[in-house]
């Protein structure tokens, strides 16, 4: 077992398969894979590994990539270096006669390398089987036709929400019903009403501003009035979830509230009624927005 003391050809690049010695560490599964590659690519007898030579190559191979490796992986390579260096040292030590029976220091490493190589054969078997299996197609191999595209609104509501909302929709007005023409609803009117209500209570349901009249024009005017007062920071609008009741909260302090309660037609209101303009229920607009203020 003198081969272990062979000096590595330090410095010069080691030719492997005609190319200079560059080892991409990423290609290797781990230290055993790298070691096996070094041995096999140089036609080295695995049962008589020139340990000093291989150790040198191994250390140089990992020198480059070690810094870029995750710590755990680096540790695995370093552990193998330590093993190699230890074996190298054992091989160099002069061994007294009485230890002649002792095992070759390389024996355990050789056993592991052979075992690793054995399982590389199994890997080949599995790869071949996997590839062959890939050539058998099952039902459903060819992709389905794309399903019809259903655009969904981004609302998340439960069936209960939907039913509750549906219940709040008033019954359709019979077509035959005759209605007075040109009853114009103004935003200003609703603003006054809202100011009056909010003066008495801390909060008012938006519903109260239009429910008694029951028409769409009143609802629109009420909503615009609420938005206008919210803009003026008189009220705050709250709705906990889609389709739930809309609440209007007074933002005014006690004195403010009483002061503004009955000044139905002051500046902002007139302005808002003009801005929002008159909303007609029926027929052509008969009068201006100021009509009812």
């Amino acid at each position: 077992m003198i081969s272990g003391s062979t000096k590595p050809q330090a410095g010069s690049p080691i030719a492997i398969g005609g190319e200079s010695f560059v080892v991409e560490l990423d290609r290797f599964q781990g230290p055993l894979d790298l070691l096996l590659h070094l041995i096999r690519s140089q036609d080295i007898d695995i049962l008589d590994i020139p340990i000093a030579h291989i150790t040198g190559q191994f250390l140089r191979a990992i020198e480059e990539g070690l810094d870029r490796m995750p710590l755990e992986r680096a540790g695995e390579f370093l552990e193998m270096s330590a093993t190699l260096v230890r074996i190298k040292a054992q091989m160099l030590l002069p061994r007294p006669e009485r230890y002649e029976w002792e095992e070759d220091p390389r024996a355990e490493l050789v056993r592991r390398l052979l075992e690793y190589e054995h399982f590389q054969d199994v890997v080949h078997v599995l790869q071949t089987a996997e590839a062959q299996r890939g050539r058998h197609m099952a039902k459903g191999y060819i992709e389905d036709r794309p399903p019809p595209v259903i655009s969904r609104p981004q609302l998340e509501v439960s069936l209960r929400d939907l039913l509750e909302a549906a219940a709040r929709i008033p019954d359709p007005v019979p077509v035959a019903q005759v209605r007075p023409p040109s009853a114009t609803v103004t935003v200003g009117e609703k603003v006054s009403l809202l100011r009056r209500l909010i003066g008495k209570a801390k909060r008012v349901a938006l519903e109260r501003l239009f429910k008694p009249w029951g028409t769409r024009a009143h609802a629109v005017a009420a909503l615009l009035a609420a938005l206008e007062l919210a803009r003026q920071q008189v009220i705050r609008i709250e709705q906990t979830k889609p389709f739930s009741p809309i609440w209007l909260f007074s933002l005014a302090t006690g004195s403010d509230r009483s002061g503004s309660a009955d000044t139905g037609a002051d500046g902002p209101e007139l302005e808002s009624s003009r801005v929002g303009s008159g909303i007609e229920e029926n027929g052509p607009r008969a009068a201006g927005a100021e009509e009812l203020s």
Partner: protein
Amino acid sequence: MRPEQIVEATLFASQTPLTPAELARADESLDETQVERAIEVLRERYEEDERAFQVYQLGDGFQLLTRPEYAPYLERFDSVPRPPHLSPAALESLAIIAYRQPIGRIEIEDVRGVSATSVLRTLIDWELIRVVGRGEGLGRPLLYGTTERFLEHFGLASLEDLPPPDELPVALGESEPDEAREAEPAAPPAEL
């Protein structure tokens, strides 16, 4: 209806392998023996008629699959994405588990020389291995074994379909390592 017709219809409609017991549920008149006999009838018939598909056994189950020679034609179509080929690390660990099961993580790492924690988790997620018990050693380590899906993934009817360890190019004997090296070199994988 003859049993082979019922079995054929059931196999045709399924996208996954079905065991004889599952196939027998198709009709009260069927039992597992009859199902197996029906599968034999179908196999012979497909063979005679040179059908493009055959009944293949995957683990305990049977499935209608196309014959490999038709793969080039089918591969020209858009296919439903399938799990990618296994990584070398996954294959290494699977190889060891397949031949040494039940086996613990430490033993797998001893063979590979690298950590196996994350790769074992992946293999469990893919249901290629599972915990089959606990070892006797310190901390009663988990022991792993291969699953039915493992057989399906590699197209094997059973673990016996894998070559016995002593027939592999590098066989590991109890005897001298010298003998191990006389075996034939590995056949190249048949894949593209």
